[in-house]
């Protein structure tokens, strides 16, 4: 198999996102991650299908030189599900925004997760409706001032991580648009995960919600405001790598190594593969100012997948069947002769 490079995944279409939009970086990470996935799994390019709904980020399939389906608002997850069930050999990627996946398409989103169908969902979360020019989304912060909330929103946002884990998600990762390296790592891990993978990408909408994630992306403070979780590694963060997370039997706590007798040995080790969802939920829920925001692969566990289930059931009942074609079926059961 010929080695693929990121150029193989670039289409000849002009990318039409605003200059400075976070989506550019996510696209670049995907175009860099897929050659690595191909190298690791032996996937040819024609095996990839990229699906999207409606919204700025949903333009992504046009920029990938793969099979692509730009569908309708909110329904990408249902389209992806149909593609994967129809041909489980395909590897399906999906781009959708916070409005697309969590508002109009919320139902499909939770059910794809519940079914654990093997698709890879990149959730572009810019906390705003960009394509319709600046209305609040289901992830906009309480009180957010937007065109449809001139006096501030009066509704609570979804935390996509808790939603995914609450629906018994088997894979959830979070990152920022600017974290190119981490995003390649997450995307590769998602591709390797057999089941529904959700990657929340906190993206910057330079026009309508600029700086929404600045406290997480600003080089001056990001080390103290985020923690990158990696399976098997200590939960340590901070500019001086001197802060960590411990579990006190009741809740997660941020501690300083070297203070109050705390040593590195006391710091939690991230186990992304444990079935126990409680700690993953607590990690996904963390937010400032008391906690760092968790990035990286928070949960990655194995469970049966829907697409395997469908395929195996067809195989199983076919092997046992006494009827093998339509003619046999038509003559099965109660029939009678007219002579």
């Amino acid at each position, binding site marked *: 198999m010929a080695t693929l490079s990121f150029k193989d995944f670039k289409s000849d279409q002009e990318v039409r996102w605003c200059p400075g939009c976070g989506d550019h970086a996510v696209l670049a990470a995907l175009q860099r991650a897929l050659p690595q996935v191909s190298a690791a799994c032996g996937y040819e390019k*024609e095996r990839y299908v990229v699906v999207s709904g409606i919204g700025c980020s949903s333009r992504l399939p046009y920029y990938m030189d793969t099979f692509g389906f730009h569908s309708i608002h909110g329904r990408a997850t249902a389209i992806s599900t*149909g593609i994967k069930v129809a*041909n489980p050999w395909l590897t399906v990627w999906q781009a959708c925004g916070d409005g697309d996946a969590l508002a109009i398409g919320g139902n499909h989103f939770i059910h794809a997760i519940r079914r654990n169908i093997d698709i890879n969902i990149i959730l572009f979360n810019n906390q705003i409706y960009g394509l319709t020019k600046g209305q609040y989304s289901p992830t906009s912060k309480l009180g957010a001032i937007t065109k449809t909330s001139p006096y501030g929103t009066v509704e609570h946002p979804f935390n996509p991580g808790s939603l995914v884990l609450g629906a018994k998600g088997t894979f959830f990762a979070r990152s920022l648009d600017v974290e190119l390296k981490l995003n390649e790592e997450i995307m590769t891990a998602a591709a390797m995960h057999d089941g529904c993978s959700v990657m929340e990408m906190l993206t910057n909408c330079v026009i309508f919600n600029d700086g929404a994630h600045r406290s997480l992306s600003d080089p001056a403070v990001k080390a103290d405001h985020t923690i990158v979780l990696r399976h098997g590694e200590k939960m340590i963060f901070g500019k001086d790598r001197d802060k960590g997370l411990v579990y006190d039997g009741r809740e997660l706590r941020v501690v300083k190594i070297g203070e109050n007798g705390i040593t590195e040995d006391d710091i939690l080790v991230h186990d992304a593969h444990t079935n126990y969802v409680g700690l993953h939920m607590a990690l996904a829920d963390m937010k400032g100012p008391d906690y760092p925001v968790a990035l990286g692969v928070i949960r990655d566990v194995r469970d049966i997948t829907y697409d395997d289930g469908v395929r195996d059931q067809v195989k199983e009942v076919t092997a*046992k069947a006494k009827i093998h074609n339509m003619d046999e079926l038509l003559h099965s059961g109660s029939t009678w002769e007219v002579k």
Partner: protein
Amino acid sequence: MQHKVIDAKDVVIRFAGDSGDGMQLTGTLFANTSAVYGNELSTFPDYPAEIRAPHGTVSGVSGFQVHIGSSDVTTPGDYCDMLVAMNPAALKANAKWCKRTATILVDEDSLTEALIQRAGFKTDNPFTELKVDDRNLIVAPITTLTEESLKDSGMDKKAIDKCKNMFTLGMACFIFDRPLDYTFEYIEKKFAKKHPEVVEPNKKVLRDGYNYAANLQMVADTYHIAPAKLKKGTYRNITGNQATAWGLMAASEKSGLPLFCGSYPITPATAILEELAIHKYLGVKTLQAEDEIAGVCTAIGAAYAGNLAVTTTSGPGLSLKSEALGLAVMTELPLVVVDVQRAGPSTGIPTKTEQTDLGQALYGRNGECPMPIVAAHSPAHCFNAAFNAAKIALEHMTPVFLLSEGFLGNGSEPWLIPSMSDYPEIKPPFATSVSEDGKFHPFERDENFVRKWALPGQKGFEHRVGGLEKNHEGVLSSDPQNHQLMVDERAAKVQKIADFIPELEVDGPEKGKLLVVGWGGTYGHILSAINEIRSAGKQVSRVHFDYIVPVPRNTRKVLESFDTILVCELNSGQFAGYLRTLYPGLNIKSFGKVQGQPFLVNELVNAISKEI
């Protein structure tokens, strides 16, 4: 009264009881017995939306009408020769369907003051109050006799009471000269594995019912309905929903593509999804989606990936699918959308039949968004209609409507089993070459305006589809001229299908004063009405549309040959309006009915006679 054996050409029997009384099963078994006996038949289940409505109330009455005969049975019949009423409510709800000469069988044990009151009678004599006391009444203590029959069976009273319907079926089998073998066989097959202890009691109570009726010869007439002169071959009984499922599976076999059905349960279409789910061993994949929208969208995804994709629904579900159907039109993917129509608008009367979704199928999408429409005209015809809908979808790269109706989906009729070798192969236009620039252009078209189908996984054919307007190469375009061109081509593609469907066949003279037009499930009723009018010596022609979009090529020629065109349909004139739009200037009249019920033959006879 002297007992008579009546030689009848046909009879109509209506079984009615509480929705938990097992009347649908009783009717089905009676119908199947008659089919095996060799009669022509047609059935009409008429049941409430409530699964177990309050016991003994009129709203909870479930009915099943069977029309059996030795020839020309094309409808379930307007009025019945015999009504079986398991309680006063069933009698009250159905007395209006009894002929003057009808026999009415009632469970005497149900004629209690409480049940008579619960059925809403004002007096203690339901027969007088309903003015049916002059009919041939058989008042038999069915509950007591069933209990007596099964007192040594070891079953409890509740279980025994559930066998009342078998006792009644036994009686009906005697009165209509039906053998019990079929039902014996059914009972054995149904219970032998899981509940072997109830096999013998059920057979006993059936036989006891039969014998009891035999001893009733003093008061009741019996009927003899000779077997029909049917075409030779092997037959089976089939409902419309089952035939729809099988027709789709047949198309899957003939195209070599796996069948994928993405669907959400909805009355009266659910049985198609259930039927398909049984046949996974023939490679069928069914996905019970989280909602109607996911049903159609998973199907569109499956179509993109190369399956024969189907979604099944009824009116309200179709409303939810509208936007996605636009996507299927725009991406030009093959998809069969089955709409088993029910009484609307909104939730309407879910278990009752209508043809009121035609307008929605024709026009219910945003933009210029044409879709072919195929309509089934009888329960067994659903097989061919589904097969043809799938063939059009796959060979012309378009979503296609298959309009069925609750009346067809739940109704059944005997069916001469076809051979799959009589059906054509289905050949989708798979892409085999790329364009000169080395790329696959997804929306370049052939002489029938059909695009090529390249499947994900096909090396070198990577391409994008979507809901945005694009040019032939698949590149997004908001150019005004290009949009006009693509709109025109999508419409031309659908119209071109007319070259691939049969022309209309006129029943009767091809020129004249009056042409009666129908489509869909009114076929049998219109046919019966026309036959009745002709037997009275009058002349009238008839035509039935199985294809609505596009209409058959000779439609204009056929319609223009008549002074008046009378369109009979179960709506307020939707097809008539469509024909007026296509052929302005013709004298197109409409006879519509929107009552959640099929036409009665006699109301059609009256309506048609007025125009002659």
